[in-house]
């Protein structure tokens, strides 16, 4: 998506907009599922998974913001990498706490 942005200003702008929109809608759907799952289970792992999906949606948000010029290309690039770090961290934490809960249940 980033490389597309760099070559995107002209004709590929439409393709860019479509990709961002589809990514945003799919991400929002997943976030909805993640939140519903959290409200059903109410476990820390599910909260972290829902937050990671939130970061995915935020990524689409940053891309959209840069498309309309609210965010500059540098901030866009940096922002997406920060969100990658956040997402990875949240998933790692979700896995960590899932292990914790099982250890408690086993003892």
């Amino acid at each position: 998506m980033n490389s597309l942005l760099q070559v995107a200003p002209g004709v590929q702008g439409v393709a860019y907009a479509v990709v961002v929109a589809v990514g945003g809608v799919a991400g929002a759907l997943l976030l909805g599922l993640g939140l519903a799952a959290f409200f059903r289970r109410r476990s820390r792992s599910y909260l972290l998974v829902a937050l990671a999906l939130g970061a995915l949606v935020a990524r689409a948000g940053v891309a959209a913001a840069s498309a309309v010029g609210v965010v500059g290309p540098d901030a866009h690039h940096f922002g997406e990498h920060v969100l990658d770090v956040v997402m990875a961290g949240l998933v790692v934490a979700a896995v960590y706490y899932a292990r914790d809960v099982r250890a408690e249940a086993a003892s």
Partner: protein
Amino acid sequence: MSEPPATRGDRPTRERVADYVLAHPGLHFNELVRRLDLAPGQAQYHLRRLVRADRVVDEEVSGRTHYFDPGIDPIERERLALFRRETAREAVVELLDGPARPDAVAGEVGVARSTLEHHLDGLVDAGVVEKRRDARGRVTLALTDPEATARSLRRIEPSLPDRLLDRFTRLVDALLE
């Protein structure tokens, strides 16, 4: 119990809610709101009055409020509420073939053990499933009343969002395992 007089405009909506609950026993509140396309406040208002008039009954099962025809007895209500969840339903369908070990059921249904255990908690509490332990303490799952269970299952069909949510939690459980 006296019901406060309803205004004319309320009537058709309330009848719609009542008819739907009677035709689809065991749906939970959010599902009713979605299917009937009502505002949550509106649904709550009508359901509360229907409950007060004893035309429907509400039952809290695993943190959700489900609605029923008052003619359905309490044991059946709890069963129907649980069978509205796909994983619980499929695990029970597996056990209709006869008692089985938890690992085998989880494998057949295609869920992680933790997902199965979560649903078993509710099924055991409701007296649908029993955990039998042999001399070495190994657990076998069995239906307490297979015929009643089969009858209840026939009254249920799942909704798409419920199906999606069940599958999502299964996937996450399997990934975190």
